[in-house]
């Protein structure tokens, strides 16, 4: 056995080198008791148990969050307004009611459209920005900051800005008129046909910077020589992007897909602060629906059932996307 290269913890044991003997060897030399002791030492030597290290994270997250989920699961079986001391139990009544609730299916549909639209747009824009800002362009440092700053600023802070910009007298319509596209000017967030796309556009504005920094980081790790070799073989820019860049950042794309899906299911701030989920529920999402049920309509039990369904969908999404990711072994 190679003593030097195997891991050991000599600090604790002056005889650590001996401890590196195989247990059989130890038993042969020092008798059965000594062999037992050495085996114990060896196991301690390999790598310490990590359980105490992850315990704080588990206590805080699992303790607090799973407690809340459990409590929510219990509330979801009640017909409760959040105040009355003796709520009636309705079993799965809330869940069956949800399946017949057109607003719930509407919210799910908005979530699907929202996810597809924002994910595709953010991926495309994020990747294009990352590729272009890795090229020789001027002001790249400044542009990087401009694209990322929206991620930093709270939706709660930007909402009034976008409300003003997208109003019929707002800057967006002004610009459209200015460049001769006045016929496109419309009350963007005031009509059902454009409200959801407007919310999606705002989300893309907020989150493209996030996709961008992750792609930018991933592209930094591509081996330069591979790109150069491809260029020598006559590959053009588009070929390099399609054949080298895109496959190398696949892990990032899957991670972003997972986060976008979860984000879409959780969407609350932007549709609520911009439009209060309106007009006529055109921008209603599960998050905004739950909020209305709890805060405005006092249907706490119903909202809890909605929350549990949301969690279920999100976890299924997460598991499917993540296991696909693991299988490709992109994540180490």
């Amino acid at each position, binding site marked *: 056995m190679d003593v030097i290269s195997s891991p050991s913890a000599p600090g604790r044991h002056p005889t650590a080198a001996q401890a590196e003997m195989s247990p059989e060897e130890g038993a042969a030399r020092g008798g059965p008791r000594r062999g037992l002791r050495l085996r114990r030492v060896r196991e301690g030597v390999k790598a*310490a148990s*990590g359980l105490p*290290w992850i315990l704080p994270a588990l206590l805080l997250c699992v303790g607090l969050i799973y407690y809340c989920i459990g409590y929510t699961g219990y*509330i979801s079986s009640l017909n409760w307004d959040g105040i009355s001391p003796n709520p009636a139990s309705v079993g799965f009544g809330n869940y069956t009611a949800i399946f017949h609730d057109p607003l719930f299916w509407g919210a799910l549909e908005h979530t699907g459209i929202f996810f597809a639209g924002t994910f595709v747009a953010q991926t495309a824009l994020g990747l294009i920005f990352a590729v272009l800002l890795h090229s020789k362009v001027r002001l790249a440092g400044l542009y990087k900051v401009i694209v990322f700053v929206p991620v930093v*600023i709270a939706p709660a802070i930007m909402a009034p800005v976008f409300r003003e910009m997208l109003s019929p007298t707002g800057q967006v319509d002004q610009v459209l008129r200015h460049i001769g596209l006045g016929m496109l000017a419309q009350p963007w967030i005031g009509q059902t046909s454009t409200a959801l796309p407007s919310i999606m556009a705002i989300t893309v504005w907020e989150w493209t910077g996030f996709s961008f920094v992750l792609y930018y980081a991933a592209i930094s790790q591509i081996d330069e020589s591979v790109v150069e070799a491809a260029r020598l073989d006559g590959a053009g820019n588009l070929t390099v992007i399609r054949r080298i860049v895109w496959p190398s950042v696949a892990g*990032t794309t899957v991670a972003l897909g997972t986060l976008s899906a979860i984000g879409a299911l959780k969407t609350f701030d932007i549709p609520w602060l911009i439009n209060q989920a309106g007009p006529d529920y055109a921008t209603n999402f599960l998050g905004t629906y739950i*909020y209305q049920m709890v805060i405005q309509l006092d249907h706490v039990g119903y909202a809890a059932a909605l929350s549990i369904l*949301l*969690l279920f969908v999100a976890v299924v999404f997460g598991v499917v996307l993540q296991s696909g990711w693991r299988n490709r072994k992109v994540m180490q």
Partner: protein
Amino acid sequence: MFEVRSRAGKIALQVIITLMVLPFLFPLIVMVQESLSGAGFSNYRAVVDVPGFWRFFLNSAVISAGVIVIVYVVAMLGSYGFAKLRIAGREFYFWLLLACLTLPEVVLLAPLFVTDQRLNLYNTYWAVILPLSALQIPFAVLLTRNFINGLPDQLFEAIRVDGAGSIATFRHLIVPLTRPIAAAVVIFTLIGAWNDYLMPLVFLQSQSMQTITLIPTFFVGEFNNDQTKILASAVVTAIPEVVAYLGLQRLFERGLTAGAIK
């Protein structure tokens, strides 16, 4: 990455990237411009003069600092455990944590409200710091674990041969080597904590406890919205985060580049 040889091509590239960046700049310009319209800088004076403004600022700072410290410590300890130590059923615990990513804040409101009152935490900093930390930790662990996974095993073997136990390894290897990813964790945690609107709104009732994200509501009246001052307060709220990001930008990028999510 993108290679253009000709002069015209270079100019075209520059024009394209500039045109793409402009829509991202536009809302920021509108925000600053509108915040100065009408009374000019007096709008900012009005924001700062909101009774207790500095108190709100301080509350936000205390809450963010608390969340950052907790998330940093817990995430570093946890990701070292997940990445380099032996844990039976490791992936199960990891999934248990990751599932927390899917939880919307709204779900926490009712259970926490009841619990906070039972434990006398209602209207204290803890009522906001603890749930915000719990919500931020999974993502921080995800980032940091991948980063530590990327550190070569030989380093850890070498320090073990030199006689270091896991605590010494943590102090002398993990803490100094994870500085870049720590910058990313700090930035994302700061964003999450400083920007949060719902938790302080629900769990901090007294005026002296409220946070800076609630300032715009002072200018949203029943009948008149003072738009310019709302935007001025938006700018004031955003400044500390933008400054923090610019200050940590280099480390932040290095942290993500060194293998955060590949």
